[in-house]
């Protein structure tokens, strides 16, 4: 298993190098624009060339990338062109905000979807119809609209939760929880809709299989059949959907962070892209790739733990 994990991590690193190289090659066409943006409306062609030389942007592209990569492997991701803030510390601070929201949304999505999906599949009838209805509504209503309604009701009218901003967990766990409550709720609705439908379908399929009938005829309780046997087998596809949901939530965080003025990864990436802040974009790309690789690996490991058939030998 250790070799499997190391192999996957190795593949992830190769992927990170390739993705960052492609990103850098795409960005290199805008180096003139970066220098021009820094100099402002008073930029002259000579000034732009001088600024590029000062920033080292006049060197061959591959030399620049090799330089960035050699620093990156040593943990130095450079500094923002515009604020001079070191990228690593900036990303670490912002990653905490984004992961707070995304992981909380992911865990709650998983928990709620399992409950709804299993209940819908095992009980059927009204419970199933309610779960399907809720799932459909979750699909149809954009999470931005949900966010707006929740902010209006819970933050502006009732003043129970903050409308904007973020409090770090270390500062005040209670305020941290309230500061991410609405963003998490907005982010997890489509995920719950998707995952509930997935689990319901997979569970119905499992519950109709022969081994379930056999278990029941041998007197195994319904609870045990559903939770210990059927759910375990249904978990594989659900976990795959969950890992895809994580990637979607990372993307969704970009909008949600803007709407709630959260100082996270998404809003930082958005601003950096508009400005052409190359070191930040590169840092975000690297972090993003590594994050997705790690989450996918974690999902595969959990899947293997739950279902021996999924283990790679």
């Amino acid at each position, binding site marked *: 298993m250790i070799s499997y994990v190391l192999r996957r991590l190795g593949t992830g690193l190769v992927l990170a190098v390739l993705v960052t190289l492609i990103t850098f090659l795409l960005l290199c066409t*805008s180096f003139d*624009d970066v220098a021009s943006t820094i100099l402002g*409306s008073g*930029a002259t062609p000579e000034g732009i060339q001088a600024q590029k030389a000062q920033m080292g942007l006049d060197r061959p592209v591959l030399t620049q990338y090799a330089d960035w990569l050699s620093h990156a492997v040593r943990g130095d991701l450079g500094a923002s062109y515009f604020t*001079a803030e070191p990228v690593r510390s900036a990303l670490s601070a912002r990653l905490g905000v984004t992961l707070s929201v995304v992981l909380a949304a992911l865990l709650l999505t998983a928990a709620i979807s399992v409950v709804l999906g299993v209940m819908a599949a095992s009980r059927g009838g009204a419970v199933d119809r309610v779960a399907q209805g809720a799932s459909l509504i979750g699909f149809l209503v954009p999470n931005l609209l949900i966010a707006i309604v929740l902010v209006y009701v819970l933050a502006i009218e009732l003043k129970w939760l903050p409308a904007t901003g973020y409090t770090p967990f270390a500062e005040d766990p209670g305020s941290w929880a309230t500061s991410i409550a609405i963003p998490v709720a907005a982010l997890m609705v489509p995920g719950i809709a998707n995952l509930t439908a997935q689990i319901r379908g997979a569970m119905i399929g499992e519950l109709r299989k022969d081994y379930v009938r056999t278990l029941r005829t041998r007197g195994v309780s319904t609870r045990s059949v559903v939770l210990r046997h059927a759910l375990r087998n249904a978990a594989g596809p659900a976990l795959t959907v969950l890992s895809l949901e994580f990637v979607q939530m990372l993307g969704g965080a970009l909008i949600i962070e803007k709407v709630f*003025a959260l100082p996270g990864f998404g809003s930082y990436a958005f601003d950096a892209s508009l400005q*052409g802040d190359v070191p930040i974009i590169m840092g975000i790309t690297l972090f993003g790739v590594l994050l997705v690789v790690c989450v996918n690996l974690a999902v595969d490991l959990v899947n293997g733990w739950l279902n021996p058939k999924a283990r790679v030998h």
Partner: protein
Amino acid sequence: MRIRFPLARPLSRVAPVAIATTVLFSTTACDGQSGGTAPGSGRTLSLAIIGTPNSFDPTQLIEGQQTYIWDSVYDTLLIQDNEGRLVPGAAESWEYSDDARVLTLQIRKGMKFTSGTPVTSAAVKATLDRVRTTSGPNQVALAAVASVETSGDHSVVIKLKRPDGSLLPALSGAPGVIGDPKTMTSKSAALNPVGSGPYTLDKGATVNGSVYVLKRRDDYWNKKAYPFSTVKVRVIADRTASVNALKAGEVNAGSVETAQVSTLESSGFEVKHVEATAAGVLVLADRGGSKLKPLGDVRVRKAINMAFDRDKIVKQILRGGGKPTVQVFNPKGDAYDPALEKTYTYDPAEAKRLLAEAGYPDGFSVPMPSLVYTKPFEPTIVQSLKEIGITVKWETVPAQQTNSALISKKYPMFFTMDGLSTAPIEVRNNFNPTGTRNVFGTTEERFDSLLTRANSEVDPAAAAKTYKELNAFTVENAWNAPVFYVGTHWVTKKGIRYLGDGSSTFSTIRQFGVTDQ
């Protein structure tokens, strides 16, 4: 000639008692008196701004809403008060030589950086020299400076290559900040500024790019002008989030869009509408006709000016949150002339006639850059120009390429939404042969002579008259096609008041005062 400080008269004599508090705080920044405790002391101003601040390195400061932060941390040599007048800042007086080539500034005594180091003429020289020799957004503002010399600890002499009317107003902005020479060149200056301004940046409570917390200094020379002991500036780029933060009580001041005003007013917020803070201008950059020949003809440029139904644009696109105009200068500034507003009225038939007279009866086509901020106006620009026979071909430009595209000389015409400034700076940016918006560097003899006169004039009243003449020249010769002024709605919670009226568009904490609740 010594410039007299115009605010020596006690304003309380001329202002009604009811607005005395407001006036007091709008002017105390300039009274030059130190000490005392400001009414409202202990209050917090929690202000929402849109843009993320740049580096705090004095060479990289940019003006805009982020100025609220750096202007609180740094002193500037001069101050632009809320009425738009230049008054003493770190320099308690200044004097131009008769030929306007030597500017002598007397630096206020007793000022200290937060590091404890005294502010001296050497610090001023070091900062000015660094700004003018380091590539950055402010280098252009000091382009006319030949040398900076010190004379004793509190006298600075700036020698100019040529007279420059925009230098004094520039010294009230980013090019006029004073940094601590000991720390200014270190990397830490970018995030941890050391200045001599009224506030210090509380690094412990500040989250870069998100929240900036400023604590007022007790030893500041003009403490009275700053009634808030704490200023918390929150970067909220999304306008809806900004309104939500106001409604939820998470910030107590911010600017909002016109559509939100009535809701906030009915919720008990105080709303102050500043009619003009930026101008929407169709820049007829190639007015020499080097790339697009028709633009070299004044009749064509006048026709373009007649193509826009400015009243309708303000009413329907800006929802009344602006004002139609044919000028690029601040309507509350020295150069503005209300009489010029009648120069071009909406008249497509006359515009077509002028185009035909110029030899373009079938019109012509022109490429224009489609930028992030031009999108809402593009259909109107296309329709208005199409009506007189001019076809616009939009070319999409990504946000990060905006500046490059505008200075590339690729586009004979482009639409801008620049913030308003003082008349000399507007002239420098828009019309100088090296101006940032005069991309093709065009000029004319009459303009040159007016510009030389304006730059050489050391008497502010006489200079103002010349800037008015410059404005009239550019409007009558249709150097641009300004369309509208766009305003700003400032919303404050009860107890806080926005004191500006648009006379000064410089973003400073001095624009916020306190009132009895």
